């Protein structure tokens, strides 16, 4: 409790993960779901960097994997916003429950 250790960071990451999951479950706006995904990705990155700091032996693998995760998150956000704009053009809303043409 007095000295900051690995567990402290992991608990912060767990809170970020659960809030991101809650956001993904409860939001009906496609951009809101995207924001939840960003929170979850951030919690994974915090985990990677914390493990790299406390368990890695000067190998910095965790930081580099977190770097790739940030790059992929940026790519994912760009693509998802493109999809949202396309859905909005076709359906005039981005309520995810209304985009159900592909349902059998």
């Amino acid at each position: 409790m007095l000295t900051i250790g690995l567990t402290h960071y992991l608990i912060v990451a767990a809170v970020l993960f659960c809030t991101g999951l809650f956001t993904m479950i409860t939001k009906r706006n496609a951009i809101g779901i995207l924001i939840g995904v960003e929170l979850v990705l951030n919690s994974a990155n915090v985990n990677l960097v914390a493990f790299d700091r406390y368990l890695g032996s000067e190998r910095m693998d965790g930081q580099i994997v977190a770097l790739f995760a940030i790059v992929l998150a940026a790519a994912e956000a760009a693509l998802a916003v493109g999809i949202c704009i396309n859905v909005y053009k076709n359906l005039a809303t981005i309520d995810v429950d209304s985009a159900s043409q592909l349902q059998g």
Partner: protein
Amino acid sequence: MLMRFSRKQIVLLIGVMLVGVSLASPVALADAGDALAMDQTGVTSAEQLGGLIEAFVFYFVAGATVVCALGVCFTKNIVRMAVWLFGALASVAVLYFLLAANFLGAIQLIVYAGGTLVLLIFGVMLTSKSPWARFEPSKWETVLAIFVCGALLAGLCMVLCSATWPGVEGTVPGVSVEAIGRKLLSVYVVPFEIAGVLLMIVLVGAAHMARQEQD
């Protein structure tokens, strides 16, 4: 309306700071007492002061992260969600600085808080008739989601607090940007190039999908 909005934001900001300070101050006081008690054990006072400051900053930033993440959860308004997300991303960047990952903290601020968030806000502005549009989930869905996420969080915290990690004695020293660059272009050169090609494909694809088609 504008006046009320800004005052509310100021109140929220003060609330975040108060939560951070209230989380941090008892621990800092306990740490100070502990530091005085540990004077005989050979730990230098500079190290103690450094640990004290680190603990204080960590609890402040962690409190801010949690409050911002909860703000993202429980805000109905999509624009305010984006603002809370900015707070959470900036706090996570400070956590990276605390973890001695300076390069990653800077990248987090530049790419996430600078790029991705602006992209999200553009998406919000382009896809709603009014920025205050809201879609509500049903009440039982919210209750169920709170139950599921709360149970998951409780389980995770229980596991994390009881877990023992192999080889946790101290911390490894922070790595320089030069070392990261060398590693990125030697060991990780294939993922690096793949990420570059992927970014190009994604940007071309996103531009194509979001294009105004005139047919």
